[in-house]
Structures are given as C-alpha cells and as structure tokens.
C-alpha cells in the first residue's frame, strides 16, 4: 500500500464529511483506526508524487523512522479520537484534516511541503483549541504559530536561494558539498529552528502553551501535549539529524535556548499549584530534552523519549482533564485524595509519572539511562549534569503531586472515570512498565535507529 | 428572456477576455450556459426583442452625447483645478432632482452619466429623486437644476430604456 493514502484518505474523508456533519465523528474514528491498521501494510521506501523524482518533485519518505513516528502518532490520535468523539462532534472534520496534516508532516521529504503540512496541522490545531472556549489564548497560539511558520519559510527560502533545492536530502548533500562554511547556513537554520521551536514549545517561543494547555479540555490537552508534541518532535528530529548544521554561534544560541527551556521548565512546574500547569511546564522541559538528544545524535533514544513522553502526557492530561471537568478546577488542593477511590486510574497515573521521572522498572528509566550513558561516552559531561539536576526538581514536584493525590483522609473528591478511559490508561501504563522491565526490544530497536541515517538512504 | 440576457452578458464577457477561437467559443458557451442556469434569477438582467434597436440608439445617440459631456466635464474640472484660487469657482451643495425614468438600470445609467459629467456627482437615488452633489449650484429650484444637470441624458435614455 502506498503511504500517501495516509494523507489522501483522511483528506478525502474530511472533504466528504462536511456533507454528513452528523456522522463526521464516526468517520473520524473509523479513518483514524484504519490508518493505524493500514500501517502494517505500508511499503517502505520513497514515494514520489505525480511521478516526478526527487529532488524535483515532492517525495514522501517511509523509512523505519517515519514508520515508528506514524505508528505512535496515529495510535495516540486514534485513542484521543475515540475517547472524545461524542463530546466534540463539531470538530470531527477538522480532526480529519489534522490527521492528514500530521501524517503529511511525518512523511514528507520536502522542506516546503513540510511548511504546507505544518500549516495544515497548525491551523487544525488552532481550531481544535477553540473548544477550550478561550479565544484569546487560541488567538495567541495562532499568531505565534504563524510567526513561527513564517520564520521557517523565510529560512527555507534563504536556503533555496543559496542551494537551489527544496528536497531535504538534496539540501543536506548540497550544503555538505558546497564547500561553504557553516556560517552561511547559520541564519536560515536559526530561523527554521525558531519556527519549529514555537511549535515544539521551546522557551522563549512558547508563551502560547500556557493559555492552551492550562485551559485544556479532554480533547485539546492530549491532542496538543501528546499527539502534536510527538509529531513535532519526530519532524524536528528529522531536521536536526539530517538537515541542520549546528555550529559556532548558532550552537551557542541553541544550547542557551535548550538549557533555559529545561531549567526554567522544571522550575516553573515546581512553582505551580495547578495540575495542568505542572504537566504543561514539565512538557516544556521534556520537549527541549528531546531536541538535545536529537542534537547529540542519539536518534533511537530520542524516539523513545518522545514515545514515553507522549504516552505519559496522554494519560496524564486525559485523567487530569476528566477530573477537572467534574471538580471545576485543577488546583492540587482540589485534587487531593483523588486516587483514594479511583485506585486503577491512580495506579496508571502513578506508573506513567514514575516513568517520566525516570525511576527504575519503567520505560523512562531505560531511556534516561541510555541517553546519559551515550552522552558520557561521547564526552559530554555538561548535559548529563543538567539533566540529572533538573531531574531531581522534576521528581520532587511529581512525587509531591502523586502523594497529594494518593493521601488524604476526608472530603475525598468525587470523580467518575468511564470504562474506556480506564481501559486505555491502564494499557498504556502496563506497556510502559512491561518495556521498562523487558528492555531488550527497546534497546535493539533504539540501537538500530542510532545506526540508521536517512540521508544516505534518500531514495530508499 | 432573462436567461438570454444573462447568457449574453456572460458569454460576451468571456469572449472579450479569451479572444475569438474555436475552442474558446465552445468552452465559453458551455460555461456561460451552465452559469446562466444557476444565476439568471439572481442577477435580473432583462432584455426584449427590441434590444438590437435599443443598442444602436444607445451606441449612436447616447454614447456620443455622453463622451462629449465627459470631455466637457473634464475640461471644467481642469479649469477649476488649475486655477490658482480654487474657492471662487465653488458654490457646492447637495441638490435633489426628479427623474421620469423607470427601471433600475435606466436610473443607474442616468446616475452614472450625471456623475461623469460636469460638476455633479450622484450620491443616492430614492424613488424618483436623485440626490446630487454639485460643485457650483446655479439653479434656484429643483426644476432648474434638473434642466442643468440631467435633462439632456434623460431624453436619450428615455428612448433606450423604454
């Protein structure tokens, strides 16, 4: 099967669904499920559109990397869709477009096509966030996203002016063979980095995240913090490893941005007293960490970092937003003792949290240890120190949160979680634990991805 | 008949743009036909069997008059604009004049003609009253104004849009 169907079919469904508004959400669930299912039958390789070969035409690339990315994003998307399809019927068609956009982002091997899909996915995201009923926050997201993608486009055009191509692989090899120093590309790459930095929630370009995630609902929270975060992470990773050349001043700037994001993200989470704020600031730090790991070249582990994070944020935001809706607000004080009568939910929440912190027996531990090990081996002693120190802070606020949610005597909050939700979060938690203990497949696949570089296989 | 009118307007527009060529004529006709079916009742273009005659009158009687008036009006404007002391040429105001023309399109043409001729600018039409901004009001009564401003067009247009 051609991977292009992953984009075409949701689009087709979206175009048709506006005539059948009442059934749009069913179409959505069906299509997103079909996407996950169909991934098993996709042929790996480079797909040309319209019959024009790279670097002239637009190509899509389905390799191990994008396949994993597609599996993760589509599965998470499906889960979010099925859990929310009844509550948010209105955005069914928009969600279909979002699915097409995300799949396009993950598949495309063309820098300008990436911009187009960034906008498709972005606009769908702005719209999905309007279900928060906070139009000002959505507006802010829209403006910042547009500024970001405009900067990306400007950087891209500068690169085109210099190297005359839009294809990622061709661009990378043109730059490598051009004989110019990295100084030539620093400015365009910085622009593109910032462009993605906005979407990837890196400080200081992420002021939209608070308005969106701190007011999120059951749809927007998991959608933005989990599905979109994963997709953007994967795409950013592809650019970072295969296209960008980060050296000299640019490297200094990027390092400052990343250190700032990690440190400030954890500090902000620490200083927060609302559950969703804690989660969202933690996401900021995690997103920066993903970028760091990609930049360090540990693709496989960056992928697992994304996976672990996305799965965790899905569970955390689902549970938090379900509870918030029923309790009225998300102050930790209100949430106190939430798990006393919701032990299953509580265990799942705890498991994924411990995984995010990186405690043993969970997937997060395996990922973190391997990242640190690889960093040390490559002679990097600074980032591990930063990661470990901020991990302590991260651990403290998450543990504080967990203990608050588990231990309270009287006046327990009354929250009902529906069966499907329980089912989903428990499965994710169990998977995180299973792969935290049975680490061999994780280790192997991550090592494979480290060895794998997609530039060489531009035409797989 | 409004279908014919609509079709003609669309088709002529298309051909004016695309040029005369077999493929274009064919495609233009098809497209115009389709759009005519969809749009005819919205646009209200009307036409009758006397159209060719009216067209001739319009072209050979009205247009020369109009162009002449247009040139005159521009010369008048030039005189004002180029004079060192503009204010003395001005005696502006809004006047109301009456028209006998019936039909929206007739009134529109009249109004546009008034706009493009010396010293006058139609602002709105209400029923049979045309409201006009005048650079230099000469007449004292509405009838005087009408004579000054619109009478010559009305005669011709009365024939065209009968």
């Amino acid at each position, binding site marked *: 099967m051609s991977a292009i169907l992953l984009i075409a079919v949701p689009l087709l469904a979206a175009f048709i669904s506006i005539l059948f508004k009442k059934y749009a959400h069913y179409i959505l669930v069906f299509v997103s499920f079909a996407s996950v299912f169909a991934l098993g039958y996709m042929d790996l390789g480079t797909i040309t559109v319209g019959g024009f070969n790279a670097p002239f035409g637009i190509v899509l690339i389905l390799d191990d990397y994008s396949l994993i990315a597609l599996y993760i994003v589509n599965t998470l998307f499906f889960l979010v869709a099925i859990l929310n399809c009844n509550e948010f019927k209105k955005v069914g068609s928009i969600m279909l477009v979002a699915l097409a956009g995300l799949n396009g982002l993950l598949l495309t091997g063309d820098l300008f096509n990436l911009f187009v899909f960034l906008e498709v996915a972005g606009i769908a995201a702005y719209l999905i966030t309007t279900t928060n009923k906070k139009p000002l*926050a959505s*507006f*802010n997201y829209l403006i*910042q996203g547009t*500024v970001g993608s405009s*900067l990306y486009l400007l950087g891209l055009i500068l690169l085109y002016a210099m190297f005359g191509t839009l294809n990622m692989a061709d661009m990378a090899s043109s730059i490598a063979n051009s004989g110019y120093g990295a100084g030539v590309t*620093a*400015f365009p790459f*910085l*622009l593109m980095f*910032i462009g993605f930095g*906005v979407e990837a929630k890196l*400080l*200081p*370009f*992420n*002021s*939209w995240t*608070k*308005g969106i995630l701190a007011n999120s609902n059951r749809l927007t929270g998991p959608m933005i913090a989990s599905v979109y975060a994963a997709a953007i992470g994967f795409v950013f990773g592809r650019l970072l490893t295969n296209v960008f050349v980060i050296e000299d*001043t*640019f490297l200094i*700037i990027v390092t400052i*941005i990343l250190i700032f994001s990690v440190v*400030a993200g954890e*500090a*902000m*989470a*620490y*200083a*927060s007293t609302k559950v969703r704020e804690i989660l969202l*600031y933690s996401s900021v730090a995690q997103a920066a960490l993903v970028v760091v790991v990609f930049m360090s070249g540990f693709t496989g582990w960056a992928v697992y970092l994304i996976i672990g994070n996305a799965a965790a944020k899905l569970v955390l935001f689902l549970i938090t937003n379900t509870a918030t809706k029923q309790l009225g607000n998300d102050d930790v004080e209100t949430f106190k003792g939430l798990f*006393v009568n919701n032990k299953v939910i509580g265990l799942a929440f705890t498991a994924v949290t*411990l995984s995010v912190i990186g*405690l*043993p*027996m969970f997937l997060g*531990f395996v990922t973190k*240890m391997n990242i*640190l*090990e690889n960093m*040390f*081996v490559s*002679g990097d002693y600074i980032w*591990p*120190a930063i990661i*470990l120190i901020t*991990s*302590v*802070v991260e*651990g*403290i606020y998450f*543990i504080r949160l967990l*203990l*608050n949610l*588990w*231990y309270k*005597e009287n006046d327990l909050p009354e929250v009902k979680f529906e069966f499907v939700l329980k089912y989903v979060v428990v499965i994710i938690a169990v998977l995180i634990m299973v792969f935290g203990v049975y*680490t*061999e497949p994780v280790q192997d696949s991550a090592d494979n991805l480290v060895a794998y570089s997609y530039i060489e296989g531009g035409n797989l | 008949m409004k279908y014919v009118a609509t079709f003609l307007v669309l088709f002529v527009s298309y051909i004016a743009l695309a040029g005369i060529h077999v493929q274009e004529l064919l495609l233009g006709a098809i497209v115009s036909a389709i759009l005519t079916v969809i749009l005819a009742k919205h646009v209200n273009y009307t036409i009758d069997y006397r159209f060719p005659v009216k067209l001739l009158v319009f072209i050979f009687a009205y247009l020369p008059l109009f162009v002449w008036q247009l040139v005159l009006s521009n010369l008048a404007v030039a005189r004002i604009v180029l004079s060192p002391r503009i204010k003395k040429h001005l005696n502006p105001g809004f006047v109301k004049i009456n028209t006998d023309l019936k039909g929206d399109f007739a009134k529109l043409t009249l109004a546009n003609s008034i706009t493009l001729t010396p010293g006058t600018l139609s602002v709105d039409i209400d029923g049979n009253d045309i409201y006009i901004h005048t650079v230099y009001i000469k007449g004292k009564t509405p009838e005087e104004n009408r004579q000054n401003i619109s009478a010559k067009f009305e005669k011709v247009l009365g024939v065209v849009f009968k």
Partner: protein
Amino acid sequence: MTVELLILVALASGILAYFVGRLNKVLGAVVTIVASMFIFIMIGYMMQDINAGTTFNYNAVEYMPDFVTFMVTYLGLFFAILVTFIFAMVSFFNPFFVEKYKYPALYSMLYLFSLAGVLGVFLTDNFMVLFFFFEFIVWSGLFLIPLGKNNKAAISYYAFSTAGSFALLYAIFIMFAQTGSYNLHLGLATVSGTTEGTYVLALLAFAAFAKLGAFPLNVWLPRALGKAPDAITAVFSGGLEKLGAFVAVLALVKLAPIGDIAGTLGGLTEATFLFASQYIVATLGAMTIVFGTLMAIRQDDAKKLLAYSSMSNGGYILVALSLGGTLGLSGGLYHIVAHALASAAAFLAIGAVSRVTGTTKMSELGGMIHKMPVTYMVYLIAIISMAGIPPMGGFISKWLIFQAVIDNGLILIAVAVFFGSIGSFLYVFRPLAALFLGQELPQHRDKAKEAPFFMLLPMLILSGLIVFTGVMPNIFLDFINDVIAELGGTGLLLGDYTITGVNGVLQPTLIASVFGVGVLIAFIIFILLKKSKKVGLMDTYTAGNFIYTEELMHYSLDFYAPLERLYEKHINITKDFYKKLENKVVDFGRMIKYFFFTNKPEITVFWIIVLIGFLLWGEL
C-alpha cells in the same frame, strides 16, 4: 540459592503479600515475616560458600540484559546479612501495625520490594545494577513513608535520596566513560588516583552523605524517621540508611588507597586530592556528629530524637571510614553493626509504646515502665549501646573509633567525637525518663499494656545481640577482618578475648563481666530493699486543689534548656538553607512564568528578534 533468585523471591512474595493483603491485611503482613526470614536465612547460608580471598561471581539468567551480573563479596555479604536481619526482625511488627495504614497491602508489598532492592545493591559487582536497585528502594520507600501520614517527609526523603542517587549515577558514568564497563571493582580501581577519581570520590561521598543523612544533607532524615510508620522507621534507621555506609565504604576505602591519611600526605600526587577530600569528609562527618547531637538534645518527640541520634551515628561511621587504617575500618564497620542493632531495637521499643498510646511525644507520655517492663529493658539496653557504654556493642565500636582518631592526631575531629559521646549520654536517657519513668498519664493508663509476644521476640533478639556484640565482639570482628582483607587492608589483631588497638588492649569480656556483676548487685539491692511507695498523680494536692503544671508531670521537660539557649538560633542552618534554595527555585519559576507565559505575542517576537540579532551580531 542464587542472588537473582532471591531477588525474584522477594519481588514475587511482595506481589503475593499484596494480593493476600487485599484479602486480609494481617495475613499479608505475615507474608512479609515469612519471606524476609527466609531471605535472611538464605543470605546466612551464603556464608558457607564464601572463603577468604575467594568470591563467586556469575551472570544472571538469559532473559535479563547481559550486563546484569551479581557477585557475592565479603563486603556485600556483611551489609546484606545485617540489613536483611533488620528487615526480618522488624517484619514481626508488621502484622500489628498494618491496621493503621491507609494501604496495608501496598505496605506489605513495598516492604518486600525494598528488601529485594537491598539484595540487589549489596550483592552485585555491577554499578548499573547497583544504581537500579538503589532507585528501586527510593521509590518503594517513598510510598512507605507517607503511610505514616506525612507527605512532606516523603518528599524530603525523595529529594535527598534522589540527589544522592544521581550523584552516584554521575560517578558511575564517569567510570563508565573511562572503562567502558559498569564493573564496580574495575571502575573504582581504574579511576583511583586519577583526577576523575577525585570527582568520583566527591560524588560518591555526596551519595553516601545523602543516604546517611549526614551534614549538610541531613534535613530529610529526622523528618522521614520522625514521621514514617513506626516499623518502617526501624528499617530505615537500622537498615536502609546503611546503603549510605556501603557507598561510603566504596568511596573512602575501595576508591581511596587504604592507609593512614597523615602518612601518605607527603607526595603531591593526584592522590593528594583524594586524601584532601577525605579530610573534608572526616570534617563533615564530625560536624554531623555535633549537629545531630545538638538537635537530638532539644527534641520533644522520642522518634525524632532517635532520628537525630541516627544522624549523629552516621557521622561516626563517616569519620571512621574516612580515617581508614585498621582501626578506622574496623571501628566504622563495627559501628555499622552496633548502631543498626541498637537503633532498630530502640525504634521498635518506641514503636511498641506508640502502638498502645498513639503518640511518641515525650510530653504526652510517662511511667510506661509499669505496664511495659520488657520494652523498657530493651530500650535501656539499646540506648546504653548508643551512648557507647560497656558492655554493649556501641562501646566497642566507639572505643575503636576514638583510638583511630587519636592515632591520626586529628584534634578537632577528636573533640567532636568526644562531644558526640557526651551528648549522647545527655539525650538518650531523656526518652527513657520521659516515656518509661515518671508519672503514668491518665489518658494512657487503661489502654497501655505490654506488647504481645511476637513483638517482644524480635526486640529481645535484638537486645540479646546488642549485649552479645559487646561481650563477644571477636566473632563479628573476625568476619569484619575478612571484609577488610578483601578491601586490601589489615584486620585487627584479635586474641581469644582481646582486641589489640594502638594504645592498648581491650578485653570486652572482662569489662562485660565487671558490669554484669555490678548490675547483678544493683538488682539484688532492688529486690531486697523495701519497695518505694508509688504515688499516683492525683495524690498531690495543694489547698485542696490538684496542681496541674507540665513540669510536675514531666521532669524531662526543658531538660537542657540552658544548653539549648546557647545554640537555638543557629541550629536550623541547613533547614533554612534548603528552604531558601526551594524558594529561589519557586521564585525563578514564577518569574519566568510572569515574563513569558502571558497571552502576549510580542514577548515571543521580542525574544526571536534578540536571538536573531545575537547570531547576526558577529557579521556586522
């Protein structure tokens, strides 16, 4: 039985305990007794397989990642036996306490999980495995502490433990970068004497300090031990805290070459830094002793008091290990044993009291000796040992440590060590007086009764051992000599009944006999002489009114008020420091939030411009 099988048993029985515990709380707790006793016995069996100079090492079964290896060494076994024993003893208390917990089944499970972690830490030659179990203990311990209904204590525990763990991890990775392997022995040997070695020492010392609750990483210890469930307190103090001691041994003994500090300081090699670091460690250890003592003196809560005593004793261990040498090592290792036994016994005794009275506050207790004489005896023996008075184990270890300090000529540290000893006289007897002696309080009079047999049993075993370690220390010192030999040092010269130190020969048995005779005489006098009249609380009237003042009922109240006044202003220096640190983090987080996270796109745009400008600056 192999180590990984034992670990599996511990984990499996933990899960079993959980499910049994869901059905019946008490039954779940019984599972912990059976399992931890079994594991202790199995570990004891390992003694048979180990001979001086030979250790056995093996890869674990295939389903695990291939770097997972276990190894039984004298050092590991020494710690493993001690800690599993404490776990086994404390487990007898579990059935009597689970009722009080919010999640009793969870308690049983995590208890055994912690035990599994202990085995993993001590019985491996692989740093990654060690770290894994280190962290495993952290998060199982983490959920045990708040069962005592205090989240703050658990969070402090987590914060410091994790900081320690991560320091350990960083050290592990430094060694890994040098050797390409996680082998513990290889790693330590490789970096020893190099610049990396100094970093590793500092990091490992940090980890040890964090686990031991030593100054300046001491804030969590009193909180956690003071607020954790009673039984768990004993495990933490007697057992888990010793993880820190283990790391300290790795850092101060295995990593740094064994020898007297003063002797090797001459040559300015890389190793000099190591020794300088050891001085720092010794100094901090001494400060730990002093601070722990001063804090213990002013506590009202008996558990907290003992917690500070634990902290202070951790200081002794650090001082001893950092001094190195035969005396230092023997003293340190022996003190580990002595303190483990004594503090477990003391905490269990307090726990037994708290079980019937519901409090551990000295101001709310009194006269328990009448209802709980056996518990009183156990507590008495434990604190005698803690204070380092013959004929208990604590005396032997302190004697060795004193000798080592004096031998090294470290005057200030010697002063601190002596101060700690005198201070412990001052504070350990306060709970004795406050809890067990004095007036029986009306609110506890009816409920209080002696603990049941299965609680007394472990307490009695422990006090027996405390006495035994004081009377017949050579049996233990013999094993410690093996440990020291394995570490590459020389053990103590042991006669049948004598210990040869630098400044003389100690004859513990003789001393014990003298004390035994003294006690016997005192007991006979107590029996023979006329009983003192017991005066009830309500018998004291003045002008027909009962005079109620706290002082009347508690002569232990404000015991050392004049002394406290000397330092009360300065004593919270570490607590304040961490409080300020936390506030700084919070302030920083709030500031960033305030500046960046508003619905104002211009902030984002501004920073984008700044960053672009920064990049382009160089091209102007």
